[in-house]
């Protein structure tokens, strides 16, 4: 482990604010993308990359690293910004999001971006990939852990439950699913579109240890990551209750900000708010 852990809550909050500002700037520059789900996932991703993951940005393919799979690939601005701030690639690359020839595609692309473990974007596939990584780790006697972030709407995909069943069956205690439970999907509230509730009970029924947390409370997030690591004999699902668009008042809990970039005036307003904290 060559990265230093940061478990200081005020520093993590400061880091998250930087990431959120990057997200707003990147999306405004790109003119398209997904602010809502990027902002809801930010604190969970920041806590992971600054306070939990065993990783080394100078050696993104280091065999013993912990793996993070962003199965809800549309939230990639949050991950790109975090990877850049962590040193996987220059922060200046963030300006190229979604442009022709950019290393930062509209959805994660492992062949173009250092630190991306698997290409994603087509929902429902990431947890299965994580199961494969976890099986490989067990087979090789390695101690690395696998974290997979899913959207709550994403869990409407049947494949998620195939993967949940497999992880439960194989008792993969080296995998942790993080459900960004912001309650909204493109067409509206998840409870109105195709409700995956009760989410915690479903994961328990598939043989997972379940932890429900406030996904914007860094202490709760870090505690949950630690509890997941300490839980043996079964995989852990962290159901993180989050706010879509978190940190930008006019985006918070508004479904239309799922997949719309802010215009320059909106971006200005959002950045001013984030600056104040």
């Amino acid at each position, binding site marked *: 482990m060559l990265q230093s852990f940061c478990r200081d809550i005020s520093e993590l909050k400061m880091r998250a604010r930087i990431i959120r500002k990057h997200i707003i700037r990147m999306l405004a520059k790109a003119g398209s993308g997904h602010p809502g789900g990027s902002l809801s996932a930010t604190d969970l991703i920041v806590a992971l990359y600054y306070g939990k993951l065993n990783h080394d940005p100078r050696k993104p393919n280091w065999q013993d690293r912990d793996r993070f799979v962003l199965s809800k690939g549309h939230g990639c601005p949050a991950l790109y910004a975090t990877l850049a701030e962590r040193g996987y690639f220059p922060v200046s690359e963030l300006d190229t999001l979604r442009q022709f020839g950019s290393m930062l595609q509209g959805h994660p692309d492992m062949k173009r971006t250092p630190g991306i473990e698997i290409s994603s974007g087509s929902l429902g596939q990431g947890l299965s990939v994580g199961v*494969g990584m976890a099986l490989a780790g067990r087979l090789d006697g390695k101690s690395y852990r696998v974290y997979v972030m899913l959207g709550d709407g994403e869990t409407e995909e049947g494949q998620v439950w*195939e993967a949940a069943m497999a992880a439960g069956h194989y008792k993969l205690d080296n995998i942790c699913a993080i459900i960004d439970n912001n309650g909204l999907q493109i067409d509206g509230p998840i409870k109105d579109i195709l409700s995956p509730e009760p989410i915690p009970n479903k994961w328990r029924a598939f043989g997972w240890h379940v932890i429900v947390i406030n996904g914007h409370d860094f202490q709760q997030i870090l505690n949950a990551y630690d509890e997941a690591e300490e839980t043996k004999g079964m995989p852990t699902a962290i159901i993180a209750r989050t706010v879509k668009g978190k940190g930008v008042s006019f985006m918070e809990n508004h479904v239309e900000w799922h997949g719309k970039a802010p215009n320059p005036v909106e971006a200005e307003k959002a950045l001013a708010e984030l600056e104040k904290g």
Partner: protein
Amino acid sequence: MTEKIATRVAYGKALLELGEKNTNIVVLDADLSKSTTTAEFSKKFPTRFFNMGVAEANMMNTAAGLATCGKIPFVSTFCIFAVGRAWEQIRNTVTYCSLNVKIVATHSGVAVGGDGSSHQAIEDIAITRAIPTLTVIEPCDAVETRKAVFAASEYNGPVYIRLGRAPVPIITKPEDEYKIGRGILLKKGDDVTIVACGALVANALDAASILDNEGIKAAVINMHTLKPIDKEILIKAAKETGAIVTAEQHVLDGGLGSAVAAILAREHPTPMEFIGIDNRFGQSGEPEVLFKHYHLTAQDIVNAVRQVIKRKVQQLQSLRV
């Protein structure tokens, strides 16, 4: 009489050999390990075998995850489920990421027999060939299956291998050279070339023998790799024989015939006829009965050769006028 072995049986044996040689080889199956014959591997190497249950989409991406960690996963089930059910997993994760996953599926074509249409993949070549950079292979017999499985394991990248349930005659020899992407001229001939894959290669050779007796010299090419397809051997055959018949156990849309036609239309337009399933689904029945019903027999190939030679002659005559 020629010995008959199903290509799926040869696969199970090849896996045992490979498993011994390379500890990175892992095998995944979706509750069909007895049918696909991966069960033999599971007995010999239980820790490297994962039965993923009746959940093909998850199985495909689990294989992808294993591949990111340096494993060489062989993923098996029936063709219809491997590349039908899990097509998008193969497209978006396995192939887009260039992962070293080998999809070796069995029960291709109507030769599945009694199970009927739901289990007879007749579109799988088209839908896998359409995926950029994916390698697509259909061996013609048990001997070639072993070579294909070994070659796939040595190749770094995703490969789809299409195998069959029913026993097929051994028509190749262990010492014959085999290279992914390189078609094999099995029989020389000046009048026409039959280009075939899989179980239809044996029928093509039978057709060529029948035609020999009629004084028609047919060349036969075993096009075991559907993608990347061997352009050179096709262009040479078109130039030398001036008429082509393709033969496959697959729908006519998007399969071997389409691939060959697309190349020759640009490189060397040549009269062609196509043996394959014409816009219909399969059904239950003995493989031989189904081959007759869907016009996949040696006699059907003979008829197609007569047709194409008629067109070749007409074309030559019209050029002289």
